[in-house]
């Protein structure tokens, strides 16, 4: 069953939904990257919560017009309208009052969501609303999805992915340097608005699968995870899209493989797993890399200080330092340095003295800034420069043999 789910063997609808949520995850990942780089990740939270009253109102309108009320395209249109209204209000509040963006986001998301819940309770008391199942928009559900709905989602996911890919250049520019973008003649606020429209498109398409509470995760987690692997915005966007797509595919397939497996939660948890993986294993910013760097740094410090202590004939008590010196054959077990140890120590001391001399010489100011107590001066200066510094060392010069 699990294998079937992952190889798209669970029937036409499940296949469409799985592919659709992979596309949706990809679009959300790429789109979310620009939101994240623009430091406005949580605006998407306001947008997604603001869709609820739209869904409910669209249902009411469609029922009033004599329709079914559950038409997915109609519900999506309604949710888009109220999301736009919520976004517009967030911007109004931020621009025209003294409230900060986070307060505006929080206010809009809670109020719109609250009003949506009021409308939902109204719908629940209606005759037509008994089986409306609009609650599934809160947490998403793919079970019992109609073929037309699955198709809508697959097409919507593909279209938003395409739109994001077409618009990625200007969005990158605006995300990194709005002033520069505006100086080159770009309309920054229009591009910001386009980004928001894309976020909204992703939200609306994802409502049915992931649900409006968790859809923000697809916009936030993939870019944050991708950011651990690269500093290049194109790579981050691509990786983020890939992470989103894998999460969408895995989550949807898992949820199709067994009953009572909530699709939205599984997609989000798949993304979170990839995030955790990145957090731990990323070669430059990950936890393991940081721990290894820390260990290497500690060893360097102990070795250097141990050598200096030998050179100055100071006793060493630190156990780790003693171990390291002993293991490298620099110090005998009784605490007497070996010949190699004495040589290395003398070299370390010479290096330290060179650094001290270097700091007094104005022509080496740039090199002096690189002093960290660990780097050998030989790695920074040429032999000629070293000779020049040695002339300033405080030791016998020109003594006849």
């Amino acid at each position, binding site marked *: 069953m699990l294998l079937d789910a992952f190889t798209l063997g669970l029937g036409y609808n499940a296949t469409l939904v799985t592919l659709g949520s992979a596309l949706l995850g990809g679009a959300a990942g790429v789109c979310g990257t620009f939101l994240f780089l623009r430091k406005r990740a949580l605006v998407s939270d306001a947008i997604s919560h603001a869709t609820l009253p739209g869904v409910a109102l669209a249902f009411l309108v469609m029922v009033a017009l004599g329709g079914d009320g559950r038409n997915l395209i109609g519900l999506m249109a309604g949710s888009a309208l109220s999301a736009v209204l919520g976004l517009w209000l967030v911007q109004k509040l931020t621009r025209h009052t003294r409230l900060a963006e986070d307060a505006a986001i929080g206010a809009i998301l809670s109020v719109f969501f609250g009003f949506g819940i009021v409308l939902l309770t109204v719908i629940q008391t209606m005759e037509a609303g008994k089986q409306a199942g609009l609650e599934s928009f809160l947490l998403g559900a793919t079970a019992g999805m109609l073929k037309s709905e699955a198709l809508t989602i697959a097409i919507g996911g593909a279209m938003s992915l395409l739109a994001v890919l077409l618009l990625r250049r200007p969005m990158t520019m605006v995300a990194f340097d709005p002033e520069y973008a505006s100086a080159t003649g770009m309309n920054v606020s229009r591009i910001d608005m386009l980004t928001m429209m894309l976020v909204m498109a992703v939200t609306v398409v994802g409502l049915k699968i992931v649900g409006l509470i968790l859809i923000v995760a697809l916009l*936030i987690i993939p870019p944050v995870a991708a950011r651990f692997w690269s500093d290049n915005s194109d790579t981050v966007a691509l990786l983020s899209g890939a992470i989103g797509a894998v999460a969408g595919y895995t989550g949807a397939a898992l949820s199709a493989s067994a009953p009572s497996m909530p699709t939205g939660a599984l997609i989000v948890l798949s993304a979170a797993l990839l995030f955790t993986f990145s957090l731990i294993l990323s070669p430059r910013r990950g936890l393991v890399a940081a721990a290894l760097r820390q260990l290497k740094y500690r060893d360097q410090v102990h070795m250097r200080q141990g050598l200096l202590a030998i050179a100055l004939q100071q006793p060493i008590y630190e156990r780790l330092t003693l171990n390291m010196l002993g293991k490298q054959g620099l110090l005998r077990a009784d605490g007497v340095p070996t010949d190699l140890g004495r040589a290395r120590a003398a070299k370390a001391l010479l290096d330290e003295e060179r650094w001290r001399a270097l700091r007094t010489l104005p022509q080496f100011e740039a090199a002096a800034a690189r002093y960290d107590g660990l780097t050998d001066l030989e790695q920074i200066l040429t032999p000629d420069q070293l000779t020049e510094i040695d002339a300033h060392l405080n030791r016998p010069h020109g003594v006849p043999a």
Partner: protein
Amino acid sequence: MFGAEFVPLSLPPLVIGSLAAVACALPGNFLVLRRQALIGDAISHVVLPGIVLAFLVTGSLGTWPMMIGAAAAALVAVALIEAIRRIGGIEPGAAMGVVFTTLFAAGVLLLERSDTSSVHLDVEHALMGSLESLIWLDGTGWGSLFDPEALAYLPPELPRLAITLTIVALLTAIFWRPLKISTFDPGFAQVIGLPTTLIGLGLVSTAAMAAVAAFDAVGSIIVIAMFICPPAAARLMTNRLEIQILWSVLFAVLSATTGYILAGYGPLWLGADNTVSAAGMIATVAGLILGLAALFGPCRNRAGAPLGA
């Protein structure tokens, strides 16, 4: 409306709603000023996995397991947000988004996979609370308010929220000066030797306590709305923190009472025969108040000067 059924059916929810609203609005003032308004949003999301875990461990929906589970989840979330922010160099908003969505998703999955059909525990309950069901059957009329025997059977949420509100108010009063200084001028606060990190952590913990206590009775919608809307509206009314707090308390009580009455009686006045969600209506009213303050508040502009002054 104020008939015989008012005391047993409407009075307790009104009082509980108001207590919860004020308990959230008080720390909310500082969170809004410190641009940490969305902490409330994050906390109210992670409460769900907390109570689900507490239920799975203890097998009961008792008050204390739930409160402890929720509080633990809130603390774990705050620690995780901070860790991700530091380790990855991720901006706080995004770190928050990662943590609360993941924990909430974990809560949903746990809930779906475990057998909770025997008890009243579902996502919708967590979102909307059950303000309407907090009735006081022993309160037979206004006279019951002075009847100790009837008072003993008040919904347990009422004394619990009253205690929470008292603690929150006391903490705010005791730490008023350090809170105020570190909120408005963190640099100065550090220079005069205030432990700013500790104050920030204390504030978030107080907010979490208020959220956890309120959440059980009124659901997370009210919690988020009350953390942000009344303080934000109050911020547009005045330039003085003391006055702002008073406004926010007033707005919180006004939202809770008006919202509850509109939800309970509004549909009846309109001729319908079912009530609507009180939690949702309270949030809606809070939003309307904020809207009015944003349109007409004397200090709504960024410069902060009253208009025409």
